[in-house]
């Protein structure tokens, strides 16, 4: 009998192209997603070397980061952003890469459109010049972010040189209490292990609380693996995965579909397989989480108090926490609930799918966004936008006083004009609260769509269960 293997090892083994003494393994990439920000220099590199894209049909592009979320009938006003979006489109045409461009009815955040179209499939290796590529791990794919030099390598060769990561089992068992979401699972994990806790590792999320999650919720969890330092995070495929994918535009059809499912069923971790590291969490004990600081590991339950730097013994850690609290202008020992907010953002590849929009709309229905708050709801893709509108969610948002926009990264990264003003506080469903991430001088509290919507109504950080 062969040694039991984890899904992470199975994915690795099946993608090794070559191994040479003294060098990392050469790994094959099945799906390469491309966006406007991290690709122009890579295409320029190809051109300079006279190289072609090796497998244009395993490559897919969209524009999302510097893309405006104003109505698509309006031009892109920022000339630098416009040039970048247009450069992506001309590069795709020159190199024969399929893309959903600015005017496409299928455009959206790269990590939203991959799964939505069935480009992302179990058993694949997926890369993108973007650290949140781990999102695709929700389908049992080994998906990780790469830099622009590596984007060029994959375009040219469909391969990357990689070292095997350590396997890290993240077990979450039990049942979430009402009002506690997938976002709270991942924020709680990162608060526990810290932003460097998973460095050098790939997470496999498993356990009854993970199996119970929908595919959209699984994407929320996997999305933030990088925020725990792991390059990738994944969940073994199961019937929910196959149901989600069945009939999507890019998945195999008929007999080929059946054969694919049979193959995918062999992916889950074998009983008795060993991990390099393991952590477990009890879902029953989790509370809605929110961050208070300037990295995603600085998280507390929404009913908690801001920690005190003087309680830390390591001087560098103490200074870093003190620096974060200075930036956030928060007082140690004070509860975060009740803290006034200026902006609420529902969107990003973490929380911009239908279930997120429904959750936010459920809280907002029949209520009004506090007049002191500016609320933006940005769907993850144009497809989601249409579906939300068909369900009347746009009306709920608009009637509550929120701004309902076109698809894109928007205020998650503040490259497209959607941004905080210096000193403003936001409750955001995105994944990063770094200094200035949502606009220079802006201050971000990361939370679930429920907490975000409740805070929009109250005008202060609010536990949705107490609204």
């Amino acid at each position, binding site marked *: 009998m062969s040694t039991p293997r984890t899904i992470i090892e199975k994915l690795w083994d099946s993608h090794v192209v070559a191994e040479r003494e003294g060098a990392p393994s050469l790994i094959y990439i*099945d799906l390469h997603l491309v966006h406007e*920000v991290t690709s122009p220099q890579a295409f320029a590199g190809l051109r300079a070397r006279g190289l072609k894209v090796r497998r244009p049909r395993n490559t897919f592009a969209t524009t999302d980061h510097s893309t405006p979320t104003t109505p698509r009938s309006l031009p892109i006003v*920022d000339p630098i952003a416009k040039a970048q979006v247009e450069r992506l489109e001309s590069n795709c045409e020159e190199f024969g890469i399929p893309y959903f461009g600015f005017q496409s009815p299928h455009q959206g955040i790269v990590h939203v459109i991959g799964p939505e179209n069935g480009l992302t499939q179990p*058993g694949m290796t997926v890369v993108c010049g973007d650290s949140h590529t781990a999102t695709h791990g929700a389908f049992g794919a080994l998906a990780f972010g790469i830099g622009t030099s590596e984007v060029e390598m994959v375009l040219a*060769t469909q391969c990357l040189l990689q070292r095997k990561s350590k396997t890290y089992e993240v077990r979450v068992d039990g049942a979430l209490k009402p009002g506690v979401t997938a976002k709270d699972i991942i924020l709680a994990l990162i608060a526990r292990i810290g932003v460097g806790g998973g460095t050098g590792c790939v997470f496999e999320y498993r356990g009854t609380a993970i199996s119970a999650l929908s595919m959209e919720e699984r994407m929320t969890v996997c999305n933030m693996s990088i925020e725990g330092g792991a390059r990738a995070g994944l969940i073994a495929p199961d019937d929910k995965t196959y149901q989600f994918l069945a009939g999507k535009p*890019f998945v195999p059809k008929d007999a080929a579909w059946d054969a694919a499912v049979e193959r995918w069923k062999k992916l889950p971790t074998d009983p008795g397989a060993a991990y390099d590291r393991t952590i477990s969490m009890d879902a029953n004990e989790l509370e809605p989480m929110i961050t208070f600081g300037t990295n995603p590991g600085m998280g507390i339950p929404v009913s908690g108090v801001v920690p005190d730097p003087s309680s830390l013994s390591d001087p560098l850690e103490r*200074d*870093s926490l003190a620096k974060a609290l200075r930036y956030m202008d928060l007082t140690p020992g004070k509860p975060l609930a009740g803290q006034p907010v200026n902006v609420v953002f529902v969107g990003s590849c973490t929380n911009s799918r239908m279930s997120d929009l429904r959750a936010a709309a459920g809280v907002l229905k029949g209520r009004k966004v506090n007049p002191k708050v500016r609320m933006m709801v940005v769907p993850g893709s144009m497809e989601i936008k249409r579906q939300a509108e068909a369900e009347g969610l746009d009306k709920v948002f608009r009637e509550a006083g929120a701004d309902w926009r076109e698809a894109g990264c928007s205020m998650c990264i503040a490259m497209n004009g959607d941004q905080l003003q210096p000193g403003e506080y936001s409750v955001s469903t995105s994944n*990063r609260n770094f200094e200035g991430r949502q606009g*220079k001088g802006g201050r971000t509290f990361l939370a679930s769509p429920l907490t975000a919507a409740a805070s929009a109504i109250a005008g202060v950080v609010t536990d949705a269960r107490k609204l």
Partner: protein
Amino acid sequence: MAQFTTLTSRMMPMPVDNIDTDQIIPARFLKTISKEGLDKQLFNDWRYDASGNPKPDFILNAPEWQGVRILLAGDNFGCGSSREHAPWALTQWGFRAILSTSFADIFKSNALKNGLVPVVVSREVHAKLFELVAADAQAAVTIDLASQTLTLPGGAKVEFPVDAFSKHCLLEGVDELGYILQQAPAIEAYEARKDVHLNTLQPS
């Protein structure tokens, strides 16, 4: 790629843990389609005030720190996004090595491809380096890649880890793409296999 053999320099101290790529270069500067001119935006939001003037109390602006080649930073340097603009900005400013206790995975991989050496030292050495710089801003260290040693002021040597392949590429100035391109036959053989997932993606 730029070669790296040995480097002797003072160390610019930046005693902050988890310095993320949004601090190294904020996202709004990523709309560029070129690699040039990013040094001006290195640590932009720590470096300039609201009207765009250099903040005199930020170390990168201090005249006495110009020309330094090594950055001494807190734990988990380079966490956050995959932007290669971070090592581009650091090297264009003049840094060739960063000393820390740990680096984020993607940043480390990007740095190594740009001739920027991430040197991991133990907590004790890390603390000692900060003390040395605090006592004497002229304190210099030498990084010798071939022997993987860091020589401290006073002559004590500590070893640091670098994987053999990255070391080879840095010492010789070899780039990875060229190396992968040489393996075209292995890639073709892999693509010819029937059991790979490749064929599950339908042409659109």
